[in-house]
């Protein structure tokens, strides 16, 4: 122990802790905590990016009116059947959560989470402008709707594909390891590479998909600029991109299932698809919930796919929340309104993060 001799400083535990913590806490305070509160503060102001850049006093305190201008309108009323599509799913979700809880197929937290989400899905779309009324910001709620639609398509797509692949690729053989690598590979690419590849894949003139359709005699689809297909295109690109992590999480979940269960199942003739349905699936409940929540958090923040592949179009059908925030702030220079939307985003993401945390805790116990 001679090499320690010369460096013996009589630091107390507190002093050592202070020295070790100081670098992180400084950076954390300056670049995360302070900006967070500053964001809330900006959202309470009429704050034009250009004007304030030239004259710091060009902002004015407006209270909550940015939130009102973004989320509210004149003569807004509520009806239980104003937006049947969403509200139907809301009611359906409410029913499902009660049913799942009653039959013991889902834990308390999961059921409660589904219940709250469904309730919001039932209540929120019920608001609509009454006679002579209008939304102050016509684009905000449709943008939120698009984001939810994107999440609603991408999350089940990724989850189901990843789960099936994980079930098929679980095992120690070399061939399976290679296949796992192939399916995971696209996950490490950046969003701009992914959009580059898929923009050209989908291109009606040069695209591989168009080339294949032409080969079999069909006429090419203008994927990225046709209203019905644009959202589908960015969802497909997203599933291709983000399958890997979900697959790995499912593989870990499957490995936690006791092998005895499968051996017992095999005695009852439950192998292959049957074993998957009766043994794997019920034992993966926790993993499924975890993967779904993670994917919701991840995909709610979608930006690059919409920004680069479709420019939010056609006709705003792929405009998503983060892109709207970005444009409001940096194209329209309206930092106040953009910050109000960012706070809205934070509230939603924060809700899901808490859910994720609670679920993680449950798992530890």
């Amino acid at each position, binding site marked *: 122990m001679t090499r320690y001799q010369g460096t013996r400083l009589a630091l107390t535990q507190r002093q050592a*802790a202070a020295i070790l913590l100081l670098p992180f806490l400084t950076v954390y305070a300056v670049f995360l905590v302070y900006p967070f509160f500053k964001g809330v503060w900006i959202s309470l102001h009429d704050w034009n990016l250009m004007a304030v850049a030239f004259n710091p006093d060009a902002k004015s305190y407006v209270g909550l009116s940015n939130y009102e201008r973004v989320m509210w309108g004149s003569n807004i009323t509520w009806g239980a059947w104003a937006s049947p599509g969403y509200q139907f799913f809301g009611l359906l979700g409410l029913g499902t959560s009660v049913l799942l809880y009653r039959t013991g197929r889902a834990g308390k937290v999961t059921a409660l989470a589904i219940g709250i989400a469904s309730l919001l899905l039932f209540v929120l779309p019920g608001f609509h402008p009454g006679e002579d009324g209008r939304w102050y910001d016509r684009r905000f709620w449709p943008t939120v709707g698009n984001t939810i639609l994107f999440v609603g398509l991408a999350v089940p797509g990724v989850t189901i594909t990843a789960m099936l692949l994980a079930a098929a690729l679980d095992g120690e053989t070399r061939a399976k390891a290679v296949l796992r690598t192939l399916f*995971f590979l696209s996950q490490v690419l*950046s969003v701009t590479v992914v959009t580059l590849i898929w923009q*050209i894949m989908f291109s009606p003139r*040069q695209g591989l998909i168009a080339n294949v359709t032409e080969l079999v005699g069909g006429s090419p689809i203008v994927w990225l600029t046709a209203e019905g297909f644009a959202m589908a295109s960015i969802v497909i690109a997203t599933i291709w991109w983000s399958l890997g992590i979900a697959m*790995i999480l499912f593989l870990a979940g499957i490995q936690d299932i006791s092998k005895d269960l499968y051996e017992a199942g095999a005695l009852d003739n439950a192998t292959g698809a049957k074993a998957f349905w009766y043994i794997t699936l019920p034992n993966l409940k926790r993993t499924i919930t975890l993967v779904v929540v993670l994917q919701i*958090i991840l995909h709610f923040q979608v930006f690059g796919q919409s920004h680069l592949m479709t420019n939010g179009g056609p006709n705003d059908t792929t405009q998503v929340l983060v892109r709207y925030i970005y444009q409001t702030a940096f194209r329209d220079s309206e930092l106040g309104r953009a910050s109000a939307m960012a706070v809205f985003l934070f509230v939603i993401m924060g809700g899901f993060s808490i859910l994720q945390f609670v679920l993680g805790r449950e798992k530890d116990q």
Partner: protein
Amino acid sequence: MTRGYYWLIFGLSIPAFIWLVPTIWMVSLSFQPNDLLARTTSSTALGLIPFPFTPDNYIALFRFGQVPMWFLNSLIVSVGMTLAVLAVSTTAGYALARLDFPFKTPIIILCLMGLMVPEQAVFIPLYTMFSDWGWHNSHHALILPRVAVPIGVFLMMQFFKAIPKDIEEAARIDGVGWLQIFWYVMLPLARPAMMTLAILTFLYAWNDYLWPLVSAQQREYFTITLGLASIQSNFAQAEGLGRVMASGVIASLPVVVLFLIFQRYVVRAMTAGGTKG
């Protein structure tokens, strides 16, 4: 190996190949001449085989254009961010896991709350702060915001918590100071966790798009990820499809190589980042 097993592998090879097709296509297009690509992208086997073959796109990329500079920027930002994150995360993680001091629990809770704040919720205020300080269009502006994200602290904290206490206690009895224990005893033990965190951070830095888009307005400070976005919207006219695809390949090369070499760490890093960040 049963017959069913081989059928399974065979059956899965087809979707695996389809999964790989977009990537193969990008690589293949990057090796075909631009004037050919302007006419057709499916000259040989739907364009999946680069014939006629040419390395011209890559040569042009390194002769003209800004791709090498962007690549260098990405390298500086990613390595810088990785080192900074490792430095603050190992120190803070050790202190929070092993040392006793006042206000420890509130500090941990405060840091945990930081995990809830998404990048998109702070990028506007960060933009105004960095504008006030004249920090935009610099490497440190691209590095610092991510260093404040507490995920690394939690990864390291969990790791240090799992190390048996007697190693530390033995050193304490010998009269070794806390900082020396951290440096000489704990850090060497923490190498696997640091490796995971380093890869997680590097991948994030290399692939980040939103913050560089906001902060780096001058093309000289673009990262390769951002630069690629700037040339892909008008790929056909300006640079030629082949060259844009070659840029895409160059932009992906470091992360793909990293993945193929350190596959296990990358998978672990990305799942850790996914589950906790």
